[in-house]
């Protein structure tokens, strides 16, 4: 029977906060076959919902979606992810013809929330509209309620996480929520889960704009699968390969050090964001690296749903003024953006900054980037201490940074400007500061520096949500990542880095998907989904007015070579960069002048509806 496929509930939970209408909407088989779930299916839904460009990211029409994938809910190693898909409040094109144009945003978060959505009986949750007053949503299987959250509005995330468990009187609820940053529409606010897992890159502001404090979900169900025998066989293979050899480099690295392992190596290799991306190596990295974290703070490794890697670490600050802070971190991104990028080497101070960033609910990547920009502008005399409300924002001054973080979350004084992201800040300050405002399309670069890494420069430039370190440095990596992001599994479980990090390959992902769905998947068909998703995202952005001039990098990377470290003297070359970009568009079958995918490509991918 044609419509007989498995692995899905085939429904989306659709909640309109304005009308308080709650319904389930069927998901057509075609969309599932073409977009799978997660980032892909979310992209298709947002394309369908937003029929014209220029609808404001913070307007009630913008859908905010929580999308697990077809692997979510099954005991598949590392199948813990949920992707939040919405229109980005961070990005904007050079072309100003539409005031509220922006790219799509998708942000991937681990933990237990994605699987729980599937336990409750849905393949995704879509929220639109705007509640009259602060609200939260409670989902218990097919019982869905919108409740009053006025008592919780303003609460920081750590306190809220504790309060909501008491309120719901059941610790089996999985929740995600925003903090003051999201409530105050800080453009780079994030959505948190278990106080430290976050969907960043602006999605928290969209949640705040809907007056939505939290979503709690709990369920007793499970989707059917097509072929139990095939599933057991494929699952065993995945269990045997996802970690690489146990005690091999991959498990060893993630379990012992998490992504913080890269703090030392990427600094050594000149690939780290240091001093607002001016340098690639941090001379004091030993004071904040993973080894120091293990000695000074970490007491526990913890993992997301069914994950054998346990890349997360939690610890306590044991001495000094920030004693008693218990939190996870640093990870590579947080340790770089609130450490090396701000020249902070005070480990305990950095832990406090990370704790506050999470507690207030902001994307630490963007926050560290914005603060780095202010530090540089202050050093250069483009802003004064008075402009900064009296904060002496010199490099490494962690106490000022901690105060600044709070100002951002509450839009207090200078924080009101800083809350709009580095692009807006540099436009306001002017004086040539755009050369060191480190963003693409308005989204701040992540913790990987690029003077010595041209492939990553390309990836930041063409990523569909603005500068993104997880986009993939080559076309095939990009397609692979987009496909993996559509499954609900964490890319750390895959063989994304075949040499150092063996794992599940695309062939096996296809095998597992076939067993679950009963639809035949092979690696080509699977990767094609990734290419389709990437192109549909591109078409969404193109419709919003993004063109070749938006796939651009700040001048810093072409003009100011590193002055120290392994890669001293490294610089991007403009001609080489342009040639690399030309080649990229041609290979993608996109027009190099406008960046529009050719109609032929779109039709071939089944995206004829975008033409």
């Amino acid at each position, binding site marked *: 029977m044609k419509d007989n496929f498995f692995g899905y509930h085939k429904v989306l939970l659709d909640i309109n906060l304005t009308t308080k209408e709650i319904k389930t909407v069927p998901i057509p088989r075609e969309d599932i076959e073409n977009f799978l779930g997660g980032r892909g299916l979310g992209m298709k839904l947002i394309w369908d919902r937003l029929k014209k460009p220029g609808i404001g990211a913070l307007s009630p029409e913008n859908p905010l979606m929580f999308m697990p994938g077809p692997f979510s809910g*099954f*005991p598949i*190693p590392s199948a813990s992810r949920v992707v939040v898909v919405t229109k980005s409040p961070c990005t904007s094109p050079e072309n100003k013809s539409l005031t509220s144009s922006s790219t799509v945003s998708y942000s991937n978060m681990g933990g*237990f929330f994605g699987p729980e959505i599937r*336990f409750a009986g849905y393949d995704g949750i879509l929220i639109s509209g705007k509640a009259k007053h602060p609200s939260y949503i409670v989902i218990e299987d097919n019982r869905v309620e919108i409740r009053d959250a006025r008592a919780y509005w303003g609460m920081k995330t*750590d306190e809220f*996480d*504790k309060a909501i*468990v008491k309120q719901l009187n059941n*610790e*089996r609820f999985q929740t995600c929520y925003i903090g003051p940053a999201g409530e105050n529409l800080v453009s780079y606010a994030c959505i948190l889960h*278990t*106080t*430290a897992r976050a969907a960043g890159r602006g999605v928290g502001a969209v949640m705040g704009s809907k007056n939505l404090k939290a979503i709690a979900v*709990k*369920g*007793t*169900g*499970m989707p*059917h*699968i097509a*072929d*139990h*025998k095939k*599933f*057991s066989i494929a*699952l065993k293979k995945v*269990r*045997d390969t996802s*970690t690489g050899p*146990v*005690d091999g480099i991959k498990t060893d690295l993630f379990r012992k050090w998490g992504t913080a392992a890269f703090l030392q190596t990427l600094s050594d290799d000149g690939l780290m964001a240091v001093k607002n991306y001016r340098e690639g190596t941090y001379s004091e990295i030993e004071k904040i690296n993973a080894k120091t974290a293990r000695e000074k703070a970490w*007491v*526990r*490794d*913890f*993992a*997301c*749903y*069914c*994950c*054998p890697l*346990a890349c997360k670490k*939690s*610890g*306590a600050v*044991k001495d000094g003024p920030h004693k*008693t802070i*218990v939190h*996870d971190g640093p990870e590579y991104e947080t340790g770089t953006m609130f450490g090396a990028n701000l020249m902070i080497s005070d480990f305990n101070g950095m832990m406090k900054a990370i704790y506050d960033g999470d507690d207030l609910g902001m994307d630490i990547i963007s926050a560290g980037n914005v603060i780095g920009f202010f530090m540089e502008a202050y050093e250069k005399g483009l802003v004064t201490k008075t402009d900064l409300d009296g904060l002496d924002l010199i490099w490494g001054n962690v106490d000022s940074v901690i105060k600044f973080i709070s100002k951002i979350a509450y839009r207090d004084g200078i924080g009101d400007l800083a809350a709009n992201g580095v692009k807006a800040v540099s436009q306001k300050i002017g004086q040539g500061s755009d050369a060191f405002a480190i963003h693409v399309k308005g989204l701040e670069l992540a913790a990987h520096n690029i003077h010595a890494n041209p492939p990553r420069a390309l990836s930041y430039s063409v990523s569909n949500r603005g500068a993104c370190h997880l986009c993939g440095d080559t076309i095939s990596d990009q397609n692979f990542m987009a496909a993996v992001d559509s499954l609900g599994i964490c890319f750390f479980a895959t063989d994304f880095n075949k040499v150092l990090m063996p794992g599940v390959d695309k062939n096996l992902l296809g095998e597992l998907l076939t067993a679950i769905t009963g639809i035949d998947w092979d690696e080509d068909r699977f990767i094609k989904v990734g290419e389709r998703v990437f192109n549909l995202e591109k078409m969404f952005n193109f419709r919003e007015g993004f063109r070749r001039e938006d796939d651009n990098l700040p001048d810093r990377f072409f003009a100011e070579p590193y002055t120290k470290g392994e890669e001293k003297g490294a610089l991007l070359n403009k001609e080489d960069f342009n040639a690399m970009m030309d080649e990229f568009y041609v290979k993608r079958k996109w027009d190099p002048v406008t960046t529009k995918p050719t109609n032929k490509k779109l039709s071939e991918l089944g995206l004829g509806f975008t033409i």
Partner: protein
Amino acid sequence: MEDNKTPEVYRKSSTHEKRALTRREFIMKLAIGGGSLVLLAGCGAKVTSVFDTGSGKQIYSFIAVDYSKCTGCRTCEAVCTAYNNPLFRDGRYKSDLGNPVHANIRVHSFNPDVDVPVTCARCDDIPCVNSCPVKPDPVTNRRALYQSGKYDLITNDTDRCIGCGNCVSACADSSVGILSQNPATNKPMRMCTLCGGDPKCLEHCPYEALSVLRVDTAYPYYRMSPEDIAEKLNKRWYNLNV
């Protein structure tokens, strides 16, 4: 900070050596070096009940958790429920489809980050069974909750069980509090089955955090509630009194 070392009692536990060994060899290997470990046979090997031969008193086996190794990944819940309470089955293939909320092992998560899996402690004084108000059957001498089979597992006779919840309260009052009432029937659930002698949780825990141990009341967290265990761990790890 107090020491965060693995207590001696966990000397042997689930291990990744299983990847290189067959399941049978694995169990043999553990059995040989077992020490305090009591192993339940798998792979069709003969199973014997576990007795403390010294006193003649019956001592059971239970799934013990090394909290310093547990990462809170809930793989144990997922595989327990897939084996013991699958939602869908397909012929002879175990479905791997269960919802973790129905598992016999339950991971309690707390803020600050502490995860506390608990399962039936196999109490020697069986407060759950003794609290059952159903009159013992004249022939079998069993109440509606009783011990049965080669492992003397806590078993519910659902035909005679009246769903009063006494056992659930007794377990909570004087032991772990693992039992709970099935929301549909009110009858007790989460009695560990030891998976017929081949515990799935132990086999699949990726972090070697689980062991099958002979009950020993000196075991550091024995019969404690998840909340009490979390409090101790908070103190030990984060030096916090929450």
